[in-house]
């Protein structure tokens, strides 16, 4: 309501700007004087930016809002110069926790009782939840949507832009539930083809006959009930990216047809004798070891070398347990948005259980665990009883410490587990956890751990 009022009421006095009613609304509101220093800052503005009112008052607004338009295209500056309000402009800010947030801003002039312009007023709405819902609906993912602090994953992230910019075929290997489609989507979003379609096909989910027509399409009359032409996924992905998931499950006959496309970039729809040229980038994925399948003669060697131009191997979640807390936070945020709940987090005990599980289903399994916990947990924190028994059955308490009933003890158990995994090598452990070696040494000393020497 404030955003609608502002363009009509340009004579908002300083006293109204400090009205405590502004603290009760969900839109952030702040006012600035002619020197661009903040003169009022409501509660919602504190929540959205992460900066408290007492730290914001008197500071330059650009240092508080930290938006992409502050330097060179300030909306408030435009309003104060032209006298015209700006309504519902979408911009991006970085909050005090380092999170990029999309927001929508509206500006107006701030005038005193005599009608003199004394500054400006800006209201803004947090669009983060809307953006998340939009991504859910369109399934448009970016690299930033892949949550990981793991050293190996960060290495994959670093090469994604170069891989995306090339047009080479990519093969993604990883266990089920590790996020292969997310990586494929991220490659597409980073590539020059991002404005064209991203089409995904699960090759393992369809029988051969259906897969052929699904991929290549068919002409009217190609078979019974083929009453009109139907474009296949190759045609639908024209100019864009085609993601072939579970390519290891493709039959030998289909492998031949895929090989022809990769060699000559042409295919024939079912029932057609005219080759069709396609400008499509192929990203393939499999949970199987294609090298082994080639040796077993279950996968064509020539096709393997055609798709294995660039290979990405995604580590399973059990090899990067340091990502579990980040993923738990991410899924809690996601389900809070989708279900309109306000679950605040997980308890120490619940997180200990989650950290001790080995996740045969990887990230998808963790997501399912959190989704299940959301059903059982109405509010507050997810507790151990909200998790299935098999998850907590593996939680034994760690070797070096006794009862794990505090954050310090949980951290100690996790570090000992990580050190054990890397054969007590401190350097390797620090690298795997993405922390400096001195940080690891400091934590070992602070937690009173006594790991064996290598």
């Amino acid at each position, binding site marked *: 309501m404030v955003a609608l009022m502002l363009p009509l009421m340009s004579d908002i006095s300083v006293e109204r700007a400090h009205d405590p009613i502004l603290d009760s609304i969900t839109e952030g509101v702040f006012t600035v004087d002619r020197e661009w220093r903040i003169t009022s800052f409501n509660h919602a503005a504190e929540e959205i930016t992460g900066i408290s009112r007492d730290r914001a008052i008197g500071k330059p607004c650009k*240092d508080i809002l930290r938006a992409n338009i502050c*330097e060179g295209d300030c909306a408030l500056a435009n309003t104060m110069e032209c006298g015209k309000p700006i309504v519902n402009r979408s911009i991006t800010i970085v909050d005090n926790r380092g999170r990029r947030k999309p927001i929508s801003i509206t500006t107006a002039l701030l005038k005193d009782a005599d009608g003199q312009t004394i500054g400006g007023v800006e209201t803004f709405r947090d669009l983060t939840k809307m953006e998340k819902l939009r991504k859910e609906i369109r399934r448009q993912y970016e690299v*930033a949507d892949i949550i990981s*602090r793991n050293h190996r994953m*960060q290495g994959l992230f670093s090469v994604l832009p170069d891989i995306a910019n090339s047009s080479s075929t990519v093969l993604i290997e990883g266990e089920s539930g590790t996020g292969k489609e997310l990586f494929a989507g991220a490659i597409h979003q980073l590539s020059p083809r991002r404005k064209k379609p991203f089409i995904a096909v699960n090759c393992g989910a369809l029988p051969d006959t259906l897969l052929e027509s699904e991929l290549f399409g068919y002409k009217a009359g190609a078979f019974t009930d083929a009453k009109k032409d139907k474009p296949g996924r190759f045609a639908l992905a024209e100019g864009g990216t085609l993601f072939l998931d579970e390519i290891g499950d493709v039959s030998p006959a289909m492998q031949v047809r895929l090989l022809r496309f990769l060699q000559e970039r042409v295919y024939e729809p079912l029932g057609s004798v005219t080759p069709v040229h396609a400008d499509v980038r192929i990203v393939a994925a499999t949970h199987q070891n294609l090298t082994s399948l080639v040796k077993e003669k279950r996968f064509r060697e020539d096709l393997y070398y055609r798709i294995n131009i660039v290979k990405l191997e995604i580590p399973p979640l059990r090899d990067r347990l340091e*990502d579990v807390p980040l993923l738990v936070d991410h899924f*809690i945020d996601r389900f809070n948005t989708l279900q309109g709940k306000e679950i605040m987090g*997980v308890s120490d005990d619940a997180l200990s259980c989650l950290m001790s599980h080995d996740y045969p289903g990887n990230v998808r399994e963790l997501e399912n665990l959190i989704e299940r916990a959301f059903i059982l947990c109405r509010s507050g924190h997810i507790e151990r009883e909200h998790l299935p028994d098999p998850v907590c059955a593996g939680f034994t308490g760690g070797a070096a410490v006794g009862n794990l009933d505090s954050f310090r003890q949980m951290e100690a158990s996790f570090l000992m587990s990580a050190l054990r995994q890397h054969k007590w090598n401190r350097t390797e452990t620090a690298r795997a956890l993405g922390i400096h070696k001195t940080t690891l040494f400091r*934590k070992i000393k602070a937690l009173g751990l006594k790991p064996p020497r290598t």
Partner: protein
Amino acid sequence: MGMGGPVVGTRYAIQIGVKTTIGIAVWDGRVSTTLDFARKLLVVDTDGTHEISRSEVALRDEPVRAKAKRLRDLSVHVVLCGTVSTPLAQATAQEGIEVIPYVSGPVDGVLEAYMTRQLAEPCFLQPGCRPGARTRWRRGAGCVLGERRVRGRGQRKGGE
């Protein structure tokens, strides 16, 4: 109040005698508010004690990974900036570049402060940040268990 005189031996200080290329996100003669949205980078070559040369390069509005790679391609060892988003900070660290955030002030003053190990002075802390913000940021970035909401024993249910 504040951190007192020059801070010696911290990671926020240049290493004497070590050639270092410093990148400073700039706008209008001052450190830019946010590295993510900065359009100019001042690249300063030093011998660890003195400035040797400087140049200004344009930064594009591009994905975080691409921006981090751009910084790497400029051979920057350390970046001084205002706020930086977590994804960009991680991407930049992955390229082996140290980021020193929450820096504010005129570019030459900030550069001299960094070269003389006085960047921890309160006058170079970005407005809106509490003293110790960089230390907490660094602790958060290096924290083993990451950033999450955990309620331990002794805390009330429904509260943090």
